[in-house]
């Protein structure tokens, strides 16, 4: 199962405000790539472009899944999800009045995911036993950490090959951030996923990332080929940590 993502020279803007300026990046099969940067530098915009929620003004976003390449620009979100790309949105964006199980089932709304729905549900409950205990509970009444589990589970329910994760650490206590990051690594391992993760929490992100890009003001300012390179780089200190 090979799934890679390659982004060529993407520009995107919200009205007159330029959010992405010639961004190019690669996520190869089986990699976990971190997209680093502080607030307002274009990480979420890039995620939205990949999933078809925002249309880039120029550039190409190509996914190659099992040897078949598709340009995602211009496709509606549901067609992109159908290809096997799932997003864990920033701030989780769950359906608060629906139960855990209904939230998970909504992850498998697309026809491609329906065939393996009961298997994926069991997998989710296996990976997150807490969710099975609380499957009838409205998600809005659960803690932040549990909600993050539901969000991850919902994304896994569509049997993705590429998982996009936007800021998994937002609104979580430090210990839960560490646990969530480990859970992402575990899911990736078990399901053979290719992962692109946007994150502000630099130290947590490079724990599980193979490589990383630093976005500053909508441009890729640095590309580190290993966690060590990211950690050592003066550029990262300068642009990102502000030291």
């Amino acid at each position: 199962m090979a799934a890679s993502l390659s982004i060529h020279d993407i520009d995107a803007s919200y009205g007159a405000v330029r959010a992405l300026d010639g961004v190019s990046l690669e996520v190869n099969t089986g990699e976990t790539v971190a997209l680093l940067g502080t607030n307002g530098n274009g990480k979420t915009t890039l995620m939205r472009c990949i999933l078809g929620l925002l249309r880039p003004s120029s550039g190409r976003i190509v996914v190659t899944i099992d040897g078949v390449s598709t340009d995602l620009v211009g496709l509606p979100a549901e067609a992109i999800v159908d290809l096997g790309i799932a997003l864990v949105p920033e701030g989780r964006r769950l359906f608060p009045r629906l139960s855990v199980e209904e939230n998970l089932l909504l992850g498998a709304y697309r026809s491609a995911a329906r065939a393996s729905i009961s298997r994926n549900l069991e997998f989710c409950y296996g990976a997150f036993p807490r969710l099975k205990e609380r499957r009838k509970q409205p998600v809005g009444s659960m803690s932040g950490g549990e909600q993050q589990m539901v969000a991850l589970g919902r994304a896994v329910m569509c049997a993705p090959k590429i998982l996009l994760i936007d800021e998994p650490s937002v609104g979580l206590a430090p210990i839960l951030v560490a646990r969530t990051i480990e859970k992402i690594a575990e899911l990736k391992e078990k399901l053979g996923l290719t992962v692109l993760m946007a994150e502000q929490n630099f130290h947590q992100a490079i724990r599980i990332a193979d490589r990383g890009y630093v976005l500053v003001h909508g441009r890729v300012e640095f590309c580190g080929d290993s966690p060590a390179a990211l950690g050592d780089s003066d550029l990262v200190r300068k642009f990102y940590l502000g030291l």
Partner: protein
Amino acid sequence: MSDAIIPALPRPAPPRRLGHAGFWLAAAAAAAILILALRGMGSEYAYFAATFVLQYVVLATAWNILGGYAGYVNFGAAAFFAAGAYTTVAVGKAFGLGLLPCIGIAAMVGGALGLGTGILTLRLRGAYFAIATLCLSVVLQTFIVNWSYVGGSRGAYILRPRDVPFGFDSYGGYLCAVVLVLAAAAIAIARSIEVSRLGLGLAALRDDEAAAEAAGVPTLRLKLIATSISGAMMAVAGAPLPYLGSYIEPTSAFGLSYAVNAIAMPLIGGTASWAGPLIGAVLLSSLQQAATVTISSAANLLIVGVVLVVFVCVAPRGIIGLFRRRR
């Protein structure tokens, strides 16, 4: 995701609830029993009052598919309702068709109107959608007022046929039975949608439209399906109206009471379930019918207003919400 990674597991046990077929049969049985009970009473007024209540059951149930399940508040219920009523007038006059084919055509007209409204208001959410639907009612009423073929502002008389079909004792009884069947069908349709994938998708729309889109729910298509079905059913609710009073005119067909009742009934009953609009419609319209007989029909909207205020304060999730903590 390959099979080698995740071993196949047995399917989770199906939830214990009535299947689609079972519910439809139960609705049909309830309708049959009610028809027999009304025949037993055999009074023209009982027929009229029951028809009045049941048309609101259809209207409220139809409104709730878009307003309750998908969370898109439609202030234009009267437009769809009157579109159904005037379809009966126009089609009846043009082709001399009876009530049943008129109901079918009204469903098509209402569905097309719903689809059109959906396409025009795709980008509108929340209050903006509600305002747009309010406009629909005004536009359509202006159109009917200026269409002399269906009577314009003078209104149109519809004579009940002399011979009563299917061996009913009076046309009132027949009309009541037809509307009762429509009500049972509306409830069964609503319940089928509620427990289906469509219902789950609509609930996701209601909770967080952007998240639904990101999860791969085809939000656009679901919205159009919901506006079409809801529109078709609201028009069906209005189709028998000209026969009920033998006379119809735009001011009352587009009246505030239909728009307000269509919203108030599901809100009072509870919008999350098919039972909510049913309970709300039976309760409110019976109260109004009782008030019309004992006090004056002028009190009707006052009753709706008072009951609505009480429920918004005491039970914001409706009567169903009082009994059910979930959702």
